[in-house]
Each structure stands twice: as C-alpha cells, then as structure tokens.
C-alpha cells in the first residue's frame, strides 16, 4: 500500500527559458505518490498546480530533476507514451471529448488509451450494450445519448463522460484538474460523489486539483499544498481527517 508509485525528485521547470521573462514554475519540487493515494492538491493561482500535472503528463519538459514511475525514469517520455499509465480529466469540458463523435465512439477511443491502434474494424456495435450499462451508472441521462455527438451534450454530461473515459481503461495514475469547477453546484457535487465512489471502488491512485477547501478535506487520504513551486504542506491519514477549514485558512495566511 505504501509502495511509491510515482516519484518527483528535485523537479525544476521553467517557462520562457533564456529570455528576460524566464520564470521558475516548479522549484526543486519533491513529491512521492504512493500506490492507492487519493491526493487533493491545493494552492493559490500560479503556485504550479497545473504545471505539476503538465510535467507528469509530459506536456511540458522539465529542466532538471527526475520523474520516476515504479523506479523507472520517465522524464523524457512523450505525452503519447505516458498515456499507457496515465489518464487525465481537464477543467474545460470541451477538452475531454471529441465534439463531432458520438458518446459511444468517444468511449471506444478511450478504451484503447495508450495502446496500439490497429487497422481493423472498430466493432462499436459489440460494445453498445456494455456502454449502456456503464453510462447508466452516471445517472445523468448519458445512457440515452450514446449515439449523440458529444458537442450536443451539456457541460455536466461531457465532464461525466470525460471522467468515465479516463477510468474506462484503468489508469495507474489519474489526474483530475479541477474537473468539476466549470459545472453548476449540484452537477459539480454529483460528479464529485461519483468520482470518489469510483476512485475508492477501483482503488485508483489519483491527484485532484481543487479550489474547493471543503472538497479537499472531505475527499482523499492525503492533502498537499503547493506554494512557489514546492510542496509546502503534506498531510495524510488521521492528521488529514483532523484538519479543518479554519486550520487550512490560517496556514494559507501564514505562507502568503
């Protein structure tokens, strides 16, 4: 259970390299993510939360340090390669799904995440029954819209679909980048419950960025705070359970 799954060692990431506007976003960041961790990530704007995800996902190259998956250095692997173990849900509902493809087609695409795609028929019809069952668990009418282009879905349905797609083929690590932030309060809460349920039942290792302190406290077994590109606070287990919003607020006041 406490086996390290992903380790970030002294990770430095700069933007606008070699220009007067050079900024260090991740500054010798160290983080060890254990197998089965559900970590909520807090931090003010510009603290480096999204950059951390982009460094793990491979969208941004790190300047120095190491990213290790099960001890293997993946710092220089491409985005495509990292999708073998990594799945992501973005904040913007538009980013997670292909708008002109149907719900079922999107699910089928996600099922082969990180795998070789072959020149053989996709066999969508064989999967429809299973997709129907799967989408029924979302309780938002998605199961009635399997043949609808995702561009015609509501933001909530799209995000629910994105989440479903990210977990359809079990990822070793799931990155949720404020995936409920663009939704109305009720839809947001529904998706959050659903997220928690699935992460627990599938025993997923998950990092979730949120600006919602309540959510950060309620969900997950571990909470970290990013500040100036470093992990400035890291609390797990019983200590996290004992944490309150007041304590968090006073901590934020302290570091600012």
């Amino acid at each position, binding site marked *: 259970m406490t086996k390290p799954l992903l380790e970030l060692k002294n990770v430095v990431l700069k933007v606008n390299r070699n220009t007067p506007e050079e900024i260090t976003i991740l500054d010798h960041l160290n983080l060890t993510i254990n197998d089965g961790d559900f970590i909520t990530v807090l931090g003010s704007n510009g603290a480096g939360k999204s950059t951390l995800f982009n460094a793990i*996902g491979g969208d941004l190259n790190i300047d120095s340090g190491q990213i290790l998956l099960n001890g293997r250095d993946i710092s220089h692997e491409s*985005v*495509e*390669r990292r*999708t*073998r173990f990594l*799945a*992501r849900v*973005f904040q913007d509902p*538009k*980013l*997670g*799904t*292909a*708008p*002109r*493809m149907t719900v079922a*087609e999107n699910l*089928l*695409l*996600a099922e*082969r*995440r*990180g*795998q070789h*795609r*072959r*020149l*053989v*028929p*996709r066999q969508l019809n064989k999967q429809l029954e299973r997709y129907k069952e799967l989408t029924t668990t979302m309780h938002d009418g998605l199961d009635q819209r399997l043949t609808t282009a995702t561009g015609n879905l509501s933001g909530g349905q799209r995000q629910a679909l994105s989440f479903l*797609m990210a977990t359809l083929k079990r990822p070793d690590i799931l990155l949720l980048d404020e995936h409920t932030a663009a939704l109305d309060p009720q839809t947001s809460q529904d998706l959050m419950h659903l997220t928690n349920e699935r992460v627990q039942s599938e025993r997923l290792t998950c990092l979730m960025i949120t600006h919602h302190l309540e959510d950060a406290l309620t969900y997950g077994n571990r909470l970290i705070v990013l500040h100036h590109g470093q992990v400035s606070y890291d609390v797990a287990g019983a200590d996290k359970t004992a944490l309150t919003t007041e304590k968090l607020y006073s901590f934020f006041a302290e570091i600012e």
Partner: protein
Amino acid sequence: MSLAVSAIGQGLLWAVLGVGLFLTFRILDFADMTVEGTFPLGAATAVAAISNGMNPLLATLLAFAIGAIAGLITGLLYTKGHIPILLAGILVMTACYSVNLRIMGRANVSLLGKATLFKNHFLASLPQYFDSVVLGVLVMVVITTIVIYFLQTEVGQGFIATGDNQTMARSLGINTDNMKIMGLMVSNGLIAFGGALVAQNNGYADVNMGIGIIVIALASIIIGEVAFGDLTLNQRLVAVTLGSILYRFVLLLVLKLGFSANDLNLISSIILAICMMLPVFKHVLNFKHILKRGLDTND
C-alpha cells in the same frame, strides 16, 4: 444528352479530388494548399511515365505515390518544422511547379498516340463520354469504399479524433503528428491520382492545370453538403461525388449562358463563396420564416 453524359463523367473523375480534400479539410479541419501543386504533379508524373512506355495503370498508381511524397513533405514541415499549415502547403505547392517542369521537360506534354487508361478495348468500344463515366464509377466506388472502411478502423477513429480534438486525442495516446502526416499523404496521393486520371482523359498535362484546384475540390464537398443536408460521415463521403457531378452541371449551365471557359475560375469561386455563405444568408433572410408566411397567406 451527350453533354449531360460528359458532365457526369467529368464529375466522377474530378470527385477523386473532393474525397482527397475531404480528409484534410473536413476531417483534420485545415485547408491544405499543397493540392494545387500535387494535382499537376500527378498529371506530370503519369504523362511522363506513359510517354516513357510505362503501363497506364502503373503510371497512375505511381502518380499516387509521388503525390503522397509531396504530402509527406508538407506534413513534416507542418508537424516537425512547426510551419503553419497554410504556409507549409504553399511552400510545397510552389516547389511542385519547378518539379513538374523538370518531370515534363516543358510546360505542356501531349499523350497523342500513347496508351491511356481510357484506350483499352472495353472503354474504347463504349459510346462517346461513357468511358469516363464507367471508369469514374469504378474508381469512386473503390476509393470511397476504402476510405469508409479505413475511417471505421481503430486507426481511422484515431484519425478523426485528431481533427476533432487534438488535446483529447493526445491524452488518449494517439500520435497526432503521425495522423496528420498520414492524412496529408493519402489526401495528396488521391489528388495526384485524380490529376493522372484527368490528364489521361484530356490527353495532355499542363504545368498550369493546378490553378484553382482547391476551389474545385472544395466545391464538390460544399455543394454535396448544401444539397443533401444532415448526413452521417459515410453518407457525406458519397455526397462528395454527387456534389462533384452537380458542380459540373452548374458549369455546363454557365457555359450555356454564354460565358467562356476562361471565366470558369471566376465563376467557380463565386459559386463556392455563395455556397459557403448560405448559412449566413439563411439567417439574415430568414428563408423559413418567409416561406411560412407565404404559406399562411395561401390559407
């Protein structure tokens, strides 16, 4: 009658271009200018190969391969060289002009007295213009079937996703660069293939025959879409061929009205512009509303 048959035949032969451009313009969602160079490139390749004694069918397939190489170059400039697609296409298109002159040796090469795909026993025995109809149907059935099959494969779905949402495609492990390069290769291969067919049908290749090609190919796509409305992806591919034929009839009509063949590029552009603006007009003029009112007063 023979004019109509001719229009259908021409429409079928030129439909190859529509399907080729559909892969980039509609699926990958960008305009690829390379096609203005690969169309005459295909024509030049086929004509030069046939003039040197190559079997016409092999020469036409060779044109596909050479066109695909041009597409590969555009794709590499775009994905690996980070040159904007419009400029990458224009660069290769411009370069093709010189290459085409090199291949043909001069600006215009005739196939007079040479074997072509249209000169086999069966096609030659048909009434006038029916040769291009028969060959065109055959070519379009084969190409459309292959493209539809491909788009339903796992790779094809990844190809569609690349054009639809690149961020999402990458996050699912689809190599979007490779998909774009592949799309540009197949697209330009088909356009060059179309160039080879048209050159053999016309009996010559001309270094300037690429001018306005992208407009003609777009016209078949857009006219097909405007004429047939809401369709599935597979149906839309078939509609391209029908759109191409419709476009030939429109040109026929324009010529009948007394315009000369020299006016065709101007007219093609106007037709395409009008078709592309139809959704705006519909909104502004509110066709449906006017129609409804017209019906109401009849009551």
